[in-house]
């Protein structure tokens, strides 16, 4: 849940990177953490699994500093993508203000993408949120593989599977090389700030 403390002039938002296992959620955060200036990003909290899957979650706090007298902070979370970690995913999603859905472009992961997306919808609903309402950015990761012999999904197929009705903003990405990573981050951050301000400040007017 976003925190807007007018007395202390603080705005805190929570963005969750959601998606199937091995899709590149942690890689997104790792890229941001390693490529960004030290002054902006905080310490990344992660359970080191030597390239293996996320066991619990990753957390990367970002600090925008003082904006118009407000201390603005954004916390980036990832969820463990594997199906068995359903409870953890739901827990991490609690109080979410914005979601990046990282879809895997590998053709073999097509079903997993859809399954994870439906899982996201279901979990949001259980928290009284709607996927149509919450800020959402879709990231189609591993697009570099589209130029290789590895069978990949086309952007049209990904759109048809995940974004047919929502028409959310999408980015093609190769998280390992940072392509599309910051574009995704900027977009979801702006959308989330707008959403939070609208929801919490405008509602009071």
């Amino acid at each position, binding site marked *: 849940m976003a925190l807007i403390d007018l007395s202390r002039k603080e705005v805190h938002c929570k963005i969750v990177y959601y998606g199937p296992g091995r899709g590149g959620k942690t890689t997104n955060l*790792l890229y941001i953490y390693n490529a960004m200036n030290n002054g902006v990003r905080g310490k990344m909290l992660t359970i080191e699994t030597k390239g293996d899957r996320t066991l619990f979650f990753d957390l990367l706090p*970002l600090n925008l500093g003082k*904006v118009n007298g407000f201390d603005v902070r954004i916390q980036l979370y990832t969820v463990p993508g594997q199906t068995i970690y359903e409870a953890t995913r739901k827990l991490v999603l609690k109080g979410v203000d914005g979601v990046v859905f990282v879809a895997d472009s590998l053709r073999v992961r097509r079903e997993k993408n859809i399954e994870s997306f439906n899982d996201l919808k279901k979990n949001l609903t259980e928290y009284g949120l709607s996927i149509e309402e919450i800020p959402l950015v879709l990231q189609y990761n591993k697009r570099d593989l589209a130029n290789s*012999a590895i069978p990949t999904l086309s952007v049209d197929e990904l759109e048809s599977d995940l974004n047919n009705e929502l028409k959310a903003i999408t980015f093609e990405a190769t998280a390992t090389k*940072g392509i599309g990573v910051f574009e995704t981050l900027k977009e979801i951050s702006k959308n989330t700030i707008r959403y939070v301000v609208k929801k919490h400040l405008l509602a009071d007017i």
Partner: protein
Amino acid sequence: MDQKEKLNEIRVFTEEVEGTIDSLFNPAKKIEIDPVTNEVREVMPEPVDEEAVEFELESAPSVSDAPSAEESDSVELDLTLELESEVDSSTETTAPPEEWLRKIQEHMMTLEWEVTPEIIENFSHTLKEPITGLPEDIAVLPDLMVQALSILRSETDNSAGSVLPALKLGLQALEKYISDTDHETKAAHATEAAVKALKKIVSGGQDSRESESETTQAQETVQTAGAPSASDIQDHTADLVAGDTPSLDLDEASLGLTPASEGMGAGTTLAEDIMEHLEVLRKSTEKIAPVEALLAGREGLEKLYKLLHGLRTDLESERKKLCQAVGVDFVPVQVEKSAVHPQQSAPAKAAGHESHVPVNEGPEQLFITHCDGVKVAFLPQEVCCHFKASSKMIKKSLKNGSFALAQLKKWPWSKISKLVSGELASLDDKALQKLTLPVKGFQGSEKASSGEKRWGIALFKNNRGAVLFVDDEPQLVAPSKDSESELITLESLSRSAA
């Protein structure tokens, strides 16, 4: 503050936050993340690469109202098209090795992630592409890899464990040759190892476990090929380990510790670890030994004794092997000789049971003599004294069924304590003068009436004693194979009496 003012303030705030996001959320440096290990490496700025331009175009947001990540224009699009057509035309004849290798690397990664017929098919297809400039010994690799893939396709469940490492070896050898031309000798080694592993898979004659183990060994060889040589690591490690464990250094090399610094550090740690393990093994063996000794000779605990004895000997044997492997002197743990269980080591003649003193496992020395013409042995730790016995003394003792130690005195003023050893020697003379020991016979007390004996032997241990009369003077000798004798102990005598 009125509503309009408040709305305006919120709008300004939102715009300022968005502006801050735009200015702050940018990469300060270019990095790449290894998709397998998550290892981060910094990428040095390179001159403009056409392929990158092509990809950047594709990575632009697909929704028109999204902020554009990259700019595009028609000139670059033309360039992309030209590049694609170039690649296509070259593939028809022969693909450049680097491009071909990149595809194989991708196939390998996909295959490691998931094994499907489709992936295998694509992999095989790429391997079959004609490649320029591969020498004959390297050129055999793609063929072998294709064959290995066909085995993988036919028996996915059973063969994946051994085929994948072999394929990886093949890939590593190709990488060595194509991208590391300065190390042709090392590439040759890598190729040899890969060909060997792949041939094993293709021949299919080997047991899968054996094949896996050999593949692993070969993989280590390939890794070592690109790393400092075994002798390099050995030299560095020897300095650190102070030359104590020369044979250990070779093992480190075979462990595939690639960077020299890592090799050195790990070498020291490995040596320390092994020495630590050896110490733990020694201490464990030492702890077992007294318990084993305690159980020895205890009736009803033979199985437990056997178990501990086996455990100790196994540990000792493993410790010995390890010591030999690392070039450290092996010092066996000393086990009390009495720890040898009579029933196991000295298949003791427990008075009345046929048994023989074992040669290798028994005590180092025994008192040997004859009793009724039969060669008998006594444990030195039980023998307190032996003495020449007159027929009068024998008769008297046999009549009473006991032997008074006072009879040992040759003169009224001589001291008995000087004539005895072992536990009896610790008693004072007065106590010894009053002490009488039961007289026992060889096959039991009923046969102790023979008056032919000339020597007496007194046994005493743990407040239990006996005197036997024997044919000749007991001699302390080391038991030998060709002089087996029947062992008489206090234990066997008491069992016999019972």
